[in-house]
């Protein structure tokens, strides 16, 4: 059973604009927000995941996106250093919660931007980390020093896919689904060098955030709107659980952004 951290969307809303998806003129529909988040919570619960909830905080609308809280490996937790001031207030709340739940909290230097699991995903034999829009490449070096693991740093080039978890999703069979156009040519090559049998997601389906999926062994919880990808995954033996995520897409987030693994891996050698 996997442990996951979620945050109820009590204070969620589009209150600022820090990525191309956000527009204060296009607010979230509160009843839909609640039902879509509950849909995710219920889907994950029925897939044999244990869910912890971190208390939401007023004036921190994006705290619902717990993937950006930090990165948990074993009993270590590296909190995020958010690039945008609008989200910086989330970090102490997440760090306190993790500390209260037995994690050793290891902060990065404040000069290094790092946005947690949003920009750091284990796949095959490495930790794949995105940089440019949110995290700095130098934060990856610091993370590698703390965890003693191989970190593959890849540059993101499309501002719509501002975190690596919006365009890259490692699968439980060692492969991954990804949208290559979100990476520069060196990043594409680095990923291809380390991950076999990659599943390319079309630009149309990538724009529905279909890579922003929660993988629980052979079950994949992903936003609806990617029938071609679902067919491919099903042919490979995965069971897909598409969910409505329209209200979170308005903030540039979906299933994976709303979920953090506790921990993502027990050790770098898993």
């Amino acid at each position, binding site marked *: 059973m996997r442990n996951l951290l979620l945050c109820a969307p009590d204070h969620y809303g589009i209150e600022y604009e820090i990525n191309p998806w956000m527009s204060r003129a296009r607010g979230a529909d509160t009843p839909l927000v609640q039902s879509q988040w509950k849909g995710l919570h219920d889907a994950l619960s029925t897939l044999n995941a244990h869910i912890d909830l971190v208390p939401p905080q007023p004036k921190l609308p994006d705290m619902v996106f717990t993937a950006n809280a930090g990165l948990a490996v074993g009993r270590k937790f590296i909190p995020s250093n958010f690039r945008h001031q609008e989200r910086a207030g989330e970090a102490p709340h997440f760090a306190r919660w993790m500390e209260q739940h037995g994690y050793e909290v290891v902060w990065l230097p404040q000069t290094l931007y790092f946005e947690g699991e949003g920009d750091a995903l284990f796949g095959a034999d*490495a930790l794949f980390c995105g940089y440019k829009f949110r995290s700095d490449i130098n934060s990856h070096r610091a993370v590698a020093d703390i965890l003693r693991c191989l970190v*593959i*740093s890849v*540059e993101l080039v499309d501002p719509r896919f501002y975190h690596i978890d919006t365009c890259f999703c490692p699968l439980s069979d060692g492969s991954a689904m990804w949208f290559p156009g979100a990476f520069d040519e*060196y990043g594409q090559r680095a990923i291809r060098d380390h991950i076999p049998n990659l599943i390319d997601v079309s630009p149309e389906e990538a724009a529905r955030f279909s890579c922003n999926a929660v993988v629980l062994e052979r079950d994949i919880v992903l936003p609806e709107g990617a029938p071609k990808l679902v067919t491919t995954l099903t042919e490979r033996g995965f069971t897909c659980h598409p969910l409505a995520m329209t209200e979170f897409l308005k903030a540039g987030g979906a299933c994976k952004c709303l979920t953090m693994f506790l921990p993502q891996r027990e050790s770098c050698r898993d």
Partner: protein
Amino acid sequence: MPSETIDLRGHIIDSLTLPKVLDSILTEGGNFKIVEIKIGQKRADQSYARIEISGPTHEKLDSMVLRLRELGAEVTKIPDAQASPPRPDPAA
């Protein structure tokens, strides 16, 4: 040609950051010389490269360094003690 020395550390081989940095220098019209390189022996070991870069103008070099910083490069600060002693003034 104006020049600068940079240090690059991390998983720069697996991430292809080293070739990316070198390609970036050439694309910007500069040249490079790898002064020192240490490749990590184990999977988790990080690598290190010290690279001397030169550009056709100070402006070009500055813009090159700016881009290389985004790729994780740090401009090397050579301690004064290691700097070459000033040449004697022949007029003195």
